[in-house]
């Protein structure tokens, strides 16, 4: 088969997990426990294999893009949308890590979800999630991307509230869905505008037509698309759903944060870059929102007591970096960060899942400590990923983050560069805090003497117990939950250790994808055809680039040093967090996530509720119901008056007939006369 024929089959990649989702939804229960998981994992593995084939095929094709229309999806007059797929360096990069990292997360979930009553359904949703994401990145027009976009939103809802018996999980799922709808609204408006101006939603048309748009139109389209990206990628102020999404099972968090969903926004902006390039000012907005979110989320992560919430805010912060890069025009650097972030964030989340799994479902880092002795592999993987995210060379994160910041600097965006650099120190600090509190320091997980030790294993927590229903997530300000003594901390089974170790290895070597030395900039060169026409950002000199790298390493080391200073002995008293205490009022503000959630809640409860009341009482009851009832009332009154005419007396009717006839006669006489 020729390369192009192979590329025609790119639709197989989303079709494989989609097939798995359908089979598992229909027969998940009958297939049973490990088999359902292996089916889902296997199909993801196959999708990964086919992605590799697609990648190899694409390398033999010039120009580096292949669009293939499977069938006409919506034929409707002048508006025709094809179910078409586009294989180009951007989409192939995404499918490689979505299927690769996704398959590892599926593998991990076999162990993590062991014993769950809805095991088969879980993998059905996971497969559907991956399939949606693949449709999203592979679509060759905005509507196919939007199809995947909505599918991802739906699956996040299904998976975040997977344990819907817990009220908090059900609420978190709704929150994720509703928040995403706001972004989707922007995406839809952008599509309407694109169709109105360009007459097509095709990416090929976009690339050619975007330059010819008026600046205002391009800016409007770009900003509306960015609104969609802000919702999906959890940027300020629509970031509120992501930390709450921690209510889902940990593999879901890993899938949402690493491989799918949140990177969709980055993908969309990268895919629609012609609009952003044509606008200019929209890119400025993107850069500043990204930089602001990176700093903002970093401060919140500093004082969170929950192992997964720290990671959640760290994801928000890292996504901020990606948008920062997109905003300054460093698309290659942004994609690079997406890929390596998928590696190390998946490692972190799966590692956190292992920690939770091996610790009787405890998520409170204040009552952990010293776990490296009990979970050596998990600890090793987690530490590697930590060094990667903190930007310590030679781990993957260093290369990506350094490139982002250097590009911002050389694009003369010193403001966003400065904010990003400060946020880099915060990243190192909060991650070092988490690592130290979990894996080093004093062991705080044993029940206090005289306490009430609960002798049970994590797997044995009954699914309807009060404890389970309350959910394990720990919010800031909650006192440390009394730790539960289990037999001993234990390492997790191999199906869970192996994916974590593989991902950790990728976090080490991921930097090789794109080393900042001309010929070694593989990813940059690979992506070049996609971002043709975007001015390249060049370092002014090697020396200044080296200086910037030194600075960013210094920031990382600084953050780690502060954390070590504060936490080297762990926590003598789990209820007192030294960093939080030193930050004082700021700590409380950070801990409550700058009160954004509270403000939104209050705005909804206050003016929002009053507005809704007005709508209900004033507009609906009086206005709309009034109009309807008024019409009915008018008809009733008229009828009531007219019914007297029908008296039942024949002679009255006869009189009416006579008068009628007389009247008619008079009329004829006078008209004729």
């Amino acid at each position: 088969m020729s390369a192009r024929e192979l590329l025609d089959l790119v639709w197989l990649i989303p079709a494989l997990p989609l097939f798995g989702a359908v089979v598992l939804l229909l027969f998940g229960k009958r297939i049973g426990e490990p088999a359902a998981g292996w089916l889902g994992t296997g199909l993801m593995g196959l999708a990964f294999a086919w992605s590799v084939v697609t990648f190899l095929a694409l390398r033999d094709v010039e120009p580096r893009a292949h669009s293939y229309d499977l069938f006409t999806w919506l034929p409707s007059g002048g508006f025709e949308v094809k179910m078409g797929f586009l294989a180009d360096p951007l989409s192939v990069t995404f499918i490689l890590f979505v299927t690769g990292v996704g398959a590892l997360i599926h593998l991990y979930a076999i162990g993590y979800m062991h014993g769950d009553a809805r095991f088969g359904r879980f993998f059905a949703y996971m497969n559907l999630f991956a399939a949606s994401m693949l449709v999203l990145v592979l679509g060759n027009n905005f509507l196919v991307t939007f199809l995947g976009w909505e599918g991802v939103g739906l699956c996040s809802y299904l998976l975040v509230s997977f344990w819907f018996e817990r009220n908090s999980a059900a609420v978190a799922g709704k929150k994720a869905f509703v928040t995403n709808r706001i972004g989707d609204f922007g995406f839809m408006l952008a599509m309407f505008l694109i169709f109105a101006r360009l007459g097509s939603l095709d990416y090929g048309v976009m690339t050619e037509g975007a330059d010819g748009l008026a600046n205002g139109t391009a800016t409007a389209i770009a900003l509306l698309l960015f609104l969609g990206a802000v919702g999906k990628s959890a940027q300020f102020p629509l970031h509120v759903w992501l930390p709450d999404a921690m209510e889902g099972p940990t593999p879901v968090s890993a899938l949402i944060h690493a491989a799918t969903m949140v990177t969709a926004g980055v993908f969309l902006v990268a895919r629609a870059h012609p609009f952003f390039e044509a606008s200019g000012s929209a890119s400025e907005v993107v850069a500043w929102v990204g930089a602001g979110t990176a700093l903002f989320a970093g401060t919140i992560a500093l004082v969170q007591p929950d192992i997964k919430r720290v990671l959640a805010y760290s994801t928000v912060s890292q996504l901020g970096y990606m948008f920062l890069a997109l905003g300054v025009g460093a698309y290659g650097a942004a994609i690079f960060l997406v890929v390596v972030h998928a590696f190390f964030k998946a490692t972190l989340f799966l590692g956190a899942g292992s920690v939770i799994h091996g610790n009787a479902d405890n998520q409170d880092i204040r009552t952990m400590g010293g776990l490296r002795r009990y979970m050596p592999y998990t600890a090793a993987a987690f530490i590697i990923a930590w060094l990667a995210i903190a930007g310590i060379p030679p781990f993957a994160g260093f290369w990506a983050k350094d490139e982002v910041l250097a590009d911002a600097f050389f694009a003369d965006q010193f403001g966003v560069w400065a904010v990003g650099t400060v946020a880099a120190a915060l990243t190192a600090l909060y991650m070092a805090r988490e690592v130290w509190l979990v894996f080093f320091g004093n062991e705080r997980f044993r029940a206090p003497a005289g306490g009430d030790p609960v002798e049970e294993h994590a797997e044995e927590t009954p699914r309807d117990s009060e404890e389970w229903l309350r959910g394990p997530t720990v919010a800031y300000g909650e006192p440390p939950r009394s730790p539960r003594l289990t037999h001993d901390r234990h390492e997790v089974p191999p199906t869970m250790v192996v994916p974590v170790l593989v991902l950790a290895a990728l976090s080490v070597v991921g930097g090789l994808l794109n080393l900042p030395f001309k010929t070694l900039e593989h990813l940059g060169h690979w992506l070049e055809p996609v971002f043709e026409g975007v001015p390249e950002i060049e370092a002014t000199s090697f020396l200044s680039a080296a200086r910037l790298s030194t600075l960013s390493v210094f920031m990382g080391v600084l953050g780690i040093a502060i954390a070590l200073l504060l936490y080297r002995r762990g926590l003598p008293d789990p209820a007192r967090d030294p960093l939080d205490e030193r930050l004082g009022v700021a700590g409380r503000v950070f801990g409550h996530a700058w009160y954004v959630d509270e403000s939104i809640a209050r705005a909804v409860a206050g003016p929002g509720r009053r507005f809704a009341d007005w709508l209900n009482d004033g507009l609906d009851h009086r206005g709309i119901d009034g109009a309807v009832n008024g019409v009915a009332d008018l008809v009733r009154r008229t009828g009531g008056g007219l019914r007297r005419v029908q008296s039942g007396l024949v002679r009255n009717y006869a009189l009416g007939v006579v008068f009628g006839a007389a009247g008619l006669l008079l009329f004829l006489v006078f008209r004729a006369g």
Partner: protein
Amino acid sequence: MIAALELTANYYLVLAALLFTIGTVGLLIRRNVLVMFMCVELMLNAANLTFVTFARELDDVGGQAIVFFTLVVAAAEVAVGLAIIVAIFRRRRGATADDVHLLKG
């Protein structure tokens, strides 16, 4: 001898008008269903007389033809109407139109 009274069409028409008026007034003021029914017949025949008059006057047989139709309709009407009246009589021991007013709004 009495001066030859020429029977012009006007006489017939005036007679028809009189008959029609008597029928109408009777229909309106009498309560006995049977009488009202006869009044209706009177009105019908007044109309018939008019038709015939004009048929002769205009030398057009169409008017006479219509009278046949009217007679047929009247016959049918009588059949139905009398049946109704008989039914009312059986039920109510009387035939006062104003007593029969169940069908009202």
